[in-house]
């Protein structure tokens, strides 16, 4: 039996509709009308990209595992929209939303899913391994929690170089029981590294609920206290709340070079991956409840309609454009060529890809 839950959920989670209490928070009040429309557009683009993926997956064009972000959009949108030049991000395998948020194109993202050479990783990474280092996006990592030490290292590098920046390490609620995450917590706190660990708590580590996977369930962020780190819990259905509370952690990283653990309560509408029939561990009513009452994209749309930032017409236009963009990306992914057999042995070693006066190694490095 799991221990009794000590629930430390944000009060605002109970909110079903109505204005966000964080609308006037400086992190949100500082946004212009255009900023807000841009943020809503990004959330809508994630939603429609992911929904388009489902159809392509069902057509058998996407192999392997496809972990969808539908329902969790406000997490990536709220956090990443705050970041600046020296702020970096890294995440696990549910990585499409973060990629679109940092500015990756739908074409390169979709083509990666269908294994095309035009994909962001030239068809070598797949759904779980998106990368865009030019946009400070360091993946896309397949092993649960394995990215936590890497992200801590990115923050270490930022600090070593004397830059005012941070690294946001995203992970699911299942990752908090991995040793690598705790080792990363310890190092981040011990060395005062500007890391923000973001637990995207969607309630299930694959098909295992928190009560069945985690001692002391109810508040995963609180484990930060064991390492002397600050923490907070956030209603991840309200993008304003995500921004308001994340801004505090970001400031802590920038001003004090101190880490934070944020637990953002969210929900995924589809299975762990498309390989999950989603029939054994939760009922349809639960999903329906979230879809109808707590959908982050709809809630933000309503918010912006109330603020008269959006009109129904503009919203429709934004959504139609996002759908059209996803449709075009699907065609692009379909029509792009595969990598070649010769491509299989490229991008293994920097030295092999960059032979020149600076490369000194010899000998055989790719074997027959």
């Amino acid at each position: 039996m799991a221990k009794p839950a000590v629930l430390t959920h944000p009060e605002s989670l109970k909110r079903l509709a109505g204005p966000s209490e964080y609308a006037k928070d400086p992190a949100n009040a500082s946004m212009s009308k255009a900023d807000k429309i841009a943020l809503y557009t990004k959330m809508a683009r994630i939603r429609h990209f992911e929904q388009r993926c489902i159809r392509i997956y069902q057509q058998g064009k996407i192999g392997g595992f496809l972990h969808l972000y539908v329902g969790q959009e406000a997490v990536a949108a709220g956090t990443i929209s705050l970041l600046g030049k020296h702020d970096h991000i890294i995440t696990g395998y549910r990585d499409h939303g973060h990629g679109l948020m940092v500015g990756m194109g739908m074409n390169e993202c979709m083509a990666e899913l269908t294994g095309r050479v035009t994909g962001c990783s030239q068809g070598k990474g797949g759904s779980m391994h998106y990368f865009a280092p030019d946009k400070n996006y360091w993946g896309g990592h397949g092993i649960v929690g394995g990215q936590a030490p890497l992200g801590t290292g990115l923050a270490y590098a930022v600090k070593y170089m004397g830059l005012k920046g941070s690294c946001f390490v995203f992970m699911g609620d299942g990752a908090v029981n991995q040793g690598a995450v705790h080792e990363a917590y310890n190092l981040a706190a011990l060395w005062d590294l500007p890391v923000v660990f973001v637990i995207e708590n969607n309630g299930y580590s694959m098909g295992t609920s928190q009560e069945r996977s985690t001692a002391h369930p109810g508040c995963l962020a609180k484990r930060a206290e064991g390492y002397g780190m600050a923490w907070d819990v956030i209603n991840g259905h309200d993008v304003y709340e995500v921004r308001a509370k994340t801004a505090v952690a970001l400031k802590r990283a920038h001003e004090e070079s101190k880490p934070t653990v944020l637990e953002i309560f969210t929900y995924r509408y589809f299975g762990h991956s498309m390989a999950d029939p989603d029939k054994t561990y939760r009922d349809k009513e639960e999903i329906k409840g979230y879809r109808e009452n707590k959908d982050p994209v709809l809630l933000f749309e309503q918010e912006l309609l109330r603020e008269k930032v959006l009109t129904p017409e503009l919203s429709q236009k934004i959504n139609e454009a996002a759908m059209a963009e996803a449709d075009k990306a699907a065609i692009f992914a379909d029509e792009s060529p595969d990598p070649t057999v010769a491509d299989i042995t490229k991008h293994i070693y920097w030295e092999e890809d960059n032979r020149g006066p600076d490369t000194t190694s010899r000998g055989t490095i790719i074997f027959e």
Partner: protein
Amino acid sequence: MAVISYREALRAAMRDELKRDDKVVIMGEEVAQFNGAYKVTEGLLKEFGPKRVVDTPISEAGFIGLGIGASMLGIRPVMELMFWSFSYVAFDQIVNNAGNIRYMSGGLINCPIVIRGPGNGGTNVGATHSHTPEAILASHPGIKVVCPATPYDAKGLLKAAIRDNDPVYVMENTILYNDKGEVPDEDYIVPLGVADVKRVGTDLTIVAHGRAVITSLKAAEILEQEHGVSVEVVDLRSIRPLDEETILASVRKTHRALLVEENKPFCGVDAQVAYLIQSRAFDELDAPIHRVSSIDAPQIYCKRMEDQQLPDVNRVVREALKVLA
């Protein structure tokens, strides 16, 4: 040219590179204040300060992963593992992350990280501290592995590793740390993937790496003195990349090959070398290839037996005579 120890040669390489490139950071358990569990990093904290020489907690998955992450942004961490045996708790970071990120990103990222430390048996510490993972790690494309046997090679290979833009894993040997040899003071590197003929001969080629080179050189001397056999000893120095041409050239000259390593035999480095020789120099061989490896069991604690579990001079001589028969 100064005569210094293998340990001092490694330290000299790190000192040179710390001076040359301010992105180089030494990191590991006990490397700074304690002066190194095996004193390899002795004095570096005093000379370079705590920003460049950093003590980590006992947390291999954490700090090795941190080093890999930092390397993606251009820091050049030189991470010490107190024993390569401890790499097993950081395996996901060492293999999945350092080894795969370049590939999975379609070449957008590289990890210029060095992980170094002793990876050897023979020190009477039992199975958990006596692993020799060079074959395991070198079997992963994306990773480079070197095993220096002499002070000269230790300095040259470590400097090359630190300047390399890919992950390079340097496997040292605690038993060699006090071995002395001539090492130039001036800057030089031993390029990765270049084997070294440590002894020239005509009748038999011995291929070895790490401390097995030293054992093989002693065996070669006995074979010469007591059996009148001229033995060539090829020191691989680098496991991946592998200098296949030097191995083949030697075998084409002597027509006989004995492969010696301190790994266990199954899928050892020499399994790959044996395949190479039979596939590209089969017609040159006058006798089957023989191997001398560690006796196939977890490392035994008992010192007297461990010395026999590892390839020793007598076993190398005995096996060489079989190849020559």
